[in-house]
């Protein structure tokens, strides 16, 4: 992995996380701590990241946002705006469905008032997970053209697959919990990344 890529990976990771530490960026980027730590130091020294010393957390400075914007502009030109637009549209066609599945995982019925899923009906849970697996297999080919041009998108596919595997093994938190690298968390970050690279704003 070359240094310029490492810097870009860490900058986009910091942008998407908002506030992040080295361990979180390790998960997000797939870089090792041996790669992340010096990259964070370089970016902080260059004024592109600001470090909170007490918490060892980083966030983008205005200069960092500008540097990231330049990197994304190059990526956008390399991949092509039209192609990116198509990929984004394909992703958004799945996004509404995914949020529906996440809601179905959390609630038997939306209400109001909602009837929460207590996970005591294994057949219900199995149905929702099967639908998520089908959705996952429709998402992966959408990301493949991006992965060819921009390696960091492989990381999202890998993290989503890992979350799905944990969920299939019975770790329910890997669907929607914000406290682990859950499917919902990774999906959320992937969407944020796609918004960044396409130059769009999130509507919801």
């Amino acid at each position: 992995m070359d240094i310029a890529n490492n810097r870009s990976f860490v900058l986009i990771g910091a942008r998407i996380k908002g506030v992040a530490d080295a361990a979180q960026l390790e998960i997000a980027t797939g870089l090792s701590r041996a790669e992340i730590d010096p990259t964070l130091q370089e970016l902080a020294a260059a004024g592109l990241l600001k470090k909170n010393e007490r918490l060892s957390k980083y966030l983008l400075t205005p200069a960092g946002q500008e540097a990231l914007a330049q990197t994304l502009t190059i990526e956008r030109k390399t991949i092509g705006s039209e192609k990116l637009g198509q990929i984004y549209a394909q992703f958004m066609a799945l996004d509404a469905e995914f949020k529906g599945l996440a809601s179905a995982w959390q609630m038997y019925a939306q209400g109001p008032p909602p009837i929460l899923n207590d996970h005591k009906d294994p057949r219900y849970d199995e149905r929702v997970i099967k639908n998520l697996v089908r959705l996952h297999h429709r998402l992966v080919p959408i990301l493949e053209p991006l992965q060819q041009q921009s390696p960091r998108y492989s990381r999202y596919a890998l993290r989503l697959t890992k979350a799905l595997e944990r969920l299939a093994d019975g770790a329910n938190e890997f669907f929607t919990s914000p406290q682990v690298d859950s499917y919902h968390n990774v999906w959320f970050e992937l969407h944020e990344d796609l918004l960044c690279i396409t130059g769009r704003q999130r509507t919801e």
Partner: protein
Amino acid sequence: MPARGRVSFMKLIGTGENLFPAGKVSGPLRRLESPQQVLELLDEEGPEDAKVIALTRFAGSTFLSPVMDKIAGIITSTGTRKGHLAIVARELELPCILGATIEECSDGCVVLLDCDDEKSASIYLISEPEPKPATD
């Protein structure tokens, strides 16, 4: 938390869609609309159980994740029941008011979220923030 009957004496300052019946919760209002504001909250030292009522326009953002354990409730002016913030709030059982309209209210105002109703929620002002002591 104030007794149930006292709600009627407080000033109603906002309403919105209730994500789920979650009772009442109060705390100091805190705008969280940027990573910088999130980091400031994260960096504050104080009682571990001190929590805020988060006010944000960005129901679909990722940057609130680091401070979710410092939040007692969420008010957002946007968002839907199937949106990302709704999914996270439901997962953490955090009272959450979506599509809220709220009067201008500074950080530190102590507010109460009445999330008893199945559909709608109300926001009441309990107290204004204490003025900071003058520095010589």
